[in-house]
C-alpha cells in the first residue's frame, strides 16, 4: 500500500500482472456507497477520527481530575467517565476555538481571527509540502525540507535585512534568494544521487543538520546579528522586503498565502500538464522504462531535487518575510518534518496538500490555545498528526478496526504493492 500514499513511487513488483478479480459484479449504487465508506476519502476521515480518539484517551488518562476520580472508580464509576469526557471535550473544544472560530469573542474580527492564524501558519507548510510531494511523485524521498527551509530563510532573510531596495523589487529578490538557497541545498543531494548513487534519504537528513549548524554559526557573525548585540538574532527584515498583510493589522495573514495558492496551482500544472512533470512521474513510476524511452535519469533526478528544494526554500523565504521577520536559530521549527507528513496526508496531490496543510496549521494553532486554556500539552498534536499519517498509510488497518469491507480496487492494489 506504500505506493498509494506517495503517489506513483516505483515498486519492484509493480510490473507483475494483477490477480484476477474474484468478486461478483455489484450494482453501481452499492459500489459507490462502498467506495465512499471504504475508499480513499472515507479512510482519510476515519483515520483522523481514530487519531483524535487515541489522542482523547491520552488526554483523559493524564488528566488530574480523571486520575483523582479514578481512585474511587468502583464506588462511583460515572465520576471517572464524566471527568474523562469533560477533559477531552474541553481540550478539543479549545482546540477548535483556537484554530477555526472563536464563538466566545465579542466582535466578528476576533471570532474569525483564529482561522486567519491557521491560514498564516499553514502557508509555509503547504509550500514546503508541495516540494516534498514533487519528490515523492518522482520516486525521491526528500527528507531534507527542513534544511532547505533553513537555507531559504537564511538567504531570503539576509537579502531582506541587509540591502535597501525599492519596495516590490526587494521582496521579489528576497523570495528569489530563498528559492535559490533551497534549490542549491537540495541540488547537492540530487547531484550526489545522480553521480554517485548516494541515497537521497541519508544525504538530505545529514544536510538538515549541516544547515542547522551553519545557521547557528552565521548567527554568531557580525553580518547576521544586530549591531552591538550578542543575541543570536538577526536584524529585522526591512519593510520593503516584507510580504504585505492581507486583512489589515488585526490579523497576521499575509500575501504568502496567495503565494501558497499560486504554488499549488503551479505544482498541479507542472505535474499534470507539463512535459517536465511527465518526465518526473515517468521516472517515479518506472525508471527502467523511462531510460528505455530516452529520459535521462540522472538529469531528471537533479531537476526533481532542484524543484523540490526550490519550493522548500520558497517556504522558508515566505516564512521569514511574511511571519517571522527576523532570523533565529529555530526559524524552521519543525516545519520541514511537518511538511513530509502534510505531503503524505495530502497524498502528494496539490489540492490534498492544500487542505492537509490547513488541517495541520489548525492543529498547531489550536494546540497552543488548548495548552493555554486547559493545560493539555500541545505535544498531543504531534501524536495526533503522526497517528493520522500512519493510519492513512495503512488502509487495511483502518478497515479492520472499523470492520469495513475491503474495496475491490484495494484488493488489486494491495496485491500489487
Amino acid at each position: 500500500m506504500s505506493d498509494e500514499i506517495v503517489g506513483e513511487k516505483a515498486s519492484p513488483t509493480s510490473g507483475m500482472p494483477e490477480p484476477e478479480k474474484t468478486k461478483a459484479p455489484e450494482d453501481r449504487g452499492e459500489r459507490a456507497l462502498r467506495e465512499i465508506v471504504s475508499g480513499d476519502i472515507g479512510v482519510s476521515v476515519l483515520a483522523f477520527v481514530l487519531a483524535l480518539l487515541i489522542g482523547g484517551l491520552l488526554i483523559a488518562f493524564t488528566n488530574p481530575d480523571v486520575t483523582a476520580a479514578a481512585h474511587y472508580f468502583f464506588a462511583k464509576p460515572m465520576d471517572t467517565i464524566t471527568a474523562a469526557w469533560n477533559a477531552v471535550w474541553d481540550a478539543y473544544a479549545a482546540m477548535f476555538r483556537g484554530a477555526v472560530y472563536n464563538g466566545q469573542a465579542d466582535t466578528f474580527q476576533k471570532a474569525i481571527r483564529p482561522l486567519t492564524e491557521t491560514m498564516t501558519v499553514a502557508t509555509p507548510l503547504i509550500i514546503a509540502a508541495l516540494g516534498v510531494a514533487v519528490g515523492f511523485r518522482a520516486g525521491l524521498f526528500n527528507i531534507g525540507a527542513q534544511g532547505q527551509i533553513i537555507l531559504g530563510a537564511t538567504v531570503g532573510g539576509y537579502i531582506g535585512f541587509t540591502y535597501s531596495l525599492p519596495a516590490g523589487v526587494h521582496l521579489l529578490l528576497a523570495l528569489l534568494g530563498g528559492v535559490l538557497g533551497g534549490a542549491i541545498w537540495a541540488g547537492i543531494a540530487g547531484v550526489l544521487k545522480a553521480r554517485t548513487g548516494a541515497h537521497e534519504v541519508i544525504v538530505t537528513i545529514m544536510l538538515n543538520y549541516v544547515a542547522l549548524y551553519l545557521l547557528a554559526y552565521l548567527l554568531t557573525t557580525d553580518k547576521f546579528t544586530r549591531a552591538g548585540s550578542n543575541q543570536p538574532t538577526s536584524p529585522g527584515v526591512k519593510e520593503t522586503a516584507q510580504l504585505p498583510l492581507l486583512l489589515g493589522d488585526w490579523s497576521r495573514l499575509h500575501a504568502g498565502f496567495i503565494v501558497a495558492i499560486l504554488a499549488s496551482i503551479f505544482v498541479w500544472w507542472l505535474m499534470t500538464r507539463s512535459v517536465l512533470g511527465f518526465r518526473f512521474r515517468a521516472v517515479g513510476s518506472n525508471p527502467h522504462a523511462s531510460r528505455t524511452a530516452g529520459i535521462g535519469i540522472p538529469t531528471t533526478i537533479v531537476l526533481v531535487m532542484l524543484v523540490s528544494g526550490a519550493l522548500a526554500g520558497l517556504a522558508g523565504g515566505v516564512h521569514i518575510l511574511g511571519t517571522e521577520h527576523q532570523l533565529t536559530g529555530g526559524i524552521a521549527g519543525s516545519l520541514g518534518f511537518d511538511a513530509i507528513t502534510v505531503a503524505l496526508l495530502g497524498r502528494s496531490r496539490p489540492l490534498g496538500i492544500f487542505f492537509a496543510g490547513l488541517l495541520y496549521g489548525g492543529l498547531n494553532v489550536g494546540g497552543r490555545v488548548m495548552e493555554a486554556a486547559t493545560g493539555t500539552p500541545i505535544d498531543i498534536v504531534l501524536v495526533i498528526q503522526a497517528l493520522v499519517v500512519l493510519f492513512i498509510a495503512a488502509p487495511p488497518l483502518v478497515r479492520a478496526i472499523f470492520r469495513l469491507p475491503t474495496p475491490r480496487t484495494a484488493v488489486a492494489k494491495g496485491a500489487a504493492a
Partner: protein
Amino acid sequence: MTALDTQAPAATPERTEPLTRRSWKAPIAFGVLGLAALVLFGFLGKSGEDTTFVISTDNDWVQIGPVAVPSKATAILLGVLMLLLAAYAAWRAWDRKPLGRWVGAVFGVLWVLSFLCWAVAGKSMSLVGLLQGSLILAVPLAFGAMGGLLNERAGVVNIAIEGQLLTGAFGAAVVASVTHSVYAGLIAAPVAGLVIGSLLALFTVKYKVNQIIVGVVLNVFAVGLTSFLFSSVLKPNAATLNSPPRMPVIDIPVLSGIPIIGPVLFRQTLLVYLLYVAVVVITIALFRTRWGLRVRAVGEHPLAADTVGIDVQATRWRNVLLGSMVAGLGGAFFTIGSVGAFSQEMTAGKGYIALAAMILGRWTPVGALAAALLFGFSDKLQQVLGVLQTPVPNQFMLMLPYLVTIVAVAGLVGRVRGPAAAGEPYVKE
C-alpha cells in the same frame, strides 16, 4: 535504503577490465589534508608556545607526568609524517596494490594530533578525559547503530532509531525513578524501545507501508508521546517520576589501573560494559550462526530465503523487535546513564547520527562501534575545545559527523553498500 544504490549508474568498470585502474583517491585526499595540516597547524601556528597533554590519572599503576611539546614544531613534524604517508599511498597506487586500512587510521590519528597541537597551543588538555568522554558519548550511537543494523540486515530500514532512543530514555528514567533502581531502568529501556519497534514492524512488515515513511512518522510520534507525557505527568510529579538514580561508575579491578587504556575502557558504567558484550554477541550471532545466515539471507534476497523455507515475515518481525530493544537500551544512556532526569527531545538528533554510524560502519557491529567512536570523539572534542576557547567555531565541529557521512555515502571513501532488500516489503506469491 540502499536498495536504490544498486540501480545507480555507477556500474563498476573494474570488473570488466583485465588490469585494475589506478585509484588516486586516497593519495590525493591524504596529500591535500596533510598539506593543509602542515600549513595551517604548522607554519601558520603560533610559535613559542607549548601544548600540554595530560595522559595519566591518580589511580593508575604507573604515573606519567603531563607531556608538554612545542606546538609549532610538533605540528610541522606531524605534517611531514602525514605527507610521507601520502607518498606511500601514492606509491602503492602506482603499483596497483591495495592500501592497508592501517594507513587511513594512522593518518587520521596524526591529523587529529596535529590539529590538537595547534588548537590547544599554550593550554593543557587531558587526553584520557577526551578519550573517556568520547567512549561515553559513543554509547547511544553504537547501540542505536546496532539496533538499526539488526533491522536492515533483515531488510527493514530503520529511520526510527531516534524515536527508539527517545522512548528508551523515557522508560529508563520513569522506571528507575519509581523503583529507585538503575537496573530496573536498564530493563525498562529496551521494553520502551519495543513500543516503537512493534509499531514499526506492524506497519512495515504486516501492512507493507513504505519503511522510510513509517520511520519518519514514528520519530514524530515518539517526540509527541514522550513530550506529552513529560509535560502532563512527569513535570507535576518530578520528585516521584523523574528523578532517577544515575548509573555508578564501576572500576574493573586490575584492568582499570593500566595507564591510558584502563581509565578509558575499564572505568565506566555498566552500560559501556554491556556495549562491549553487545558488539561481540551481535557480531558472532550475525556472521557465525545459522540464525545470522538466515537473517542476512532475508535481507539480501527474501525470495530465495523463502524458497528454502525461511519464514521471511517472522524473521523480519523478530529482528525489528530485537533491533528496537537494542536501540532502546542505548536510550537509557541519556537519562540514567548520564544526566538522570528526562527532558523533552533530549536525544536531539543522535538517532540520525546513529543511522550514519551504521552506514559508515557498513552494517557490521564492529564497524558501527568504530564509527560511533569517531562521532563520539568529534562530539567530545567540540565540548572540550568549547571550554578551552579555541579558534574553531564549535558549530563546524558539530557539523563534522554529518559531513563525514555525506562523503562516505557519496562513495568518496570506498563504496558503501547495504543489504540489497532493505526498504522493500516482501510479498509472498
